[in-house]
């Protein structure tokens, strides 16, 4: 039960980190920052790694918006308006996309519960470590007398 509680606590600690990663930014940004957080939809890679003609136009679009003084979140919203949600490297935390964050955590918790239940059941069904050994009786009175005689012959 203690181990299970630790696992649940670890999963709960992951949630704030996920929420912080998607926290909107109102600060000025750079092309490099945006490139690390959006995709080239045609290439299927991060924009920063893409070299296609479409990626070139997408970068030019981002640079134009940066020059206009748009914030990172405004630029990402503009890219989503052009290319759809798939342009974001990380799913946004709303609607169906939130499942990308929730499903792994839920799966982890369910797996931990199943594992704990399986271990508990196994330990109950197998019992104590010596349950399967036959009971051993101590030496008889005659055997004790003979043992004492043998031990008496040695100067221990």
């Amino acid at each position, binding site marked *: 039960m203690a181990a299970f509680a630790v696992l649940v606590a670890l999963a709960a600690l992951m949630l704030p980190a996920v929420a912080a990663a998607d926290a909107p930014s109102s600060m000025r940004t750079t092309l490099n920052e945006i490139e690390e957080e959006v995709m080239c939809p045609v290439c299927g890679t991060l924009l920063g790694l893409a070299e296609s*003609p479409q990626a070139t*136009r997408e970068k030019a679009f981002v640079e134009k918006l940066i020059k206009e003084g748009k914030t990172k979140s405004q630029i990402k919203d503009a890219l989503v308006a*052009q290319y759809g949600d798939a342009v974001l490297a990380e799913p946004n935390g709303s609607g169906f996309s939130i499942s990308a964050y929730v499903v792994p955590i839920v799966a982890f918790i369910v797996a931990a519960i199943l594992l704990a239940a399986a271990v508990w059941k196994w330990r109950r069904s197998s019992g104590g470590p010596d349950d399967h050994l036959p009971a051993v009786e101590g030496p008889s009175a005659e055997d004790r007398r003979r043992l004492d005689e043998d031990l008496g012959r040695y100067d221990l």
Partner: protein
Amino acid sequence: MRIRSIIAILVAVAIVALLVFGLISKGNSRLAVGAAAPSPTLPKLDEPGSGSLKEYRGKWVLVNFWASWCIPCRDEAPALEQFQQEHGGKTFTVVGIDTQDISDDGTKFAHEYDISYPLLHDGNGDNGHEFGTTGVPENYLLEPNGRLAWAVAGPVDARILREQVTPFLPPKSKES
């Protein structure tokens, strides 16, 4: 033992389901001749409002998937506009779908090549995926009932349009 078997079966089913989901989401196969073409509502590229291929039912439609960043698309644009000028009317039209492109770039492209046929904007490329496109440009000829009659992956030119598309179209005398 029974619970372990159930867990093992559930894990196997989950793995198979994930594999199937991955295969399905990877993309559709190309639209087959005779199949009904998808016709979602898309924003118009060069004017306000939205449009759909359904609006052109009753006409032959040459659906041209293109993008402003696509060099072969620039090569074929004059031929498509010329074809529209020669055959466009009551029985035929070209419809251009600007896919995975910045709408301003698409609009500039349309002005640069004096494109007169209807243009729609498919920013996320989903409509193209439903046709089974794997890139741009690609061209699909739809019958008046919306079913696919002919398709080619890659650019078209005046010769391809004359030899492969024109035979499908009704004679121009029938338009009057």
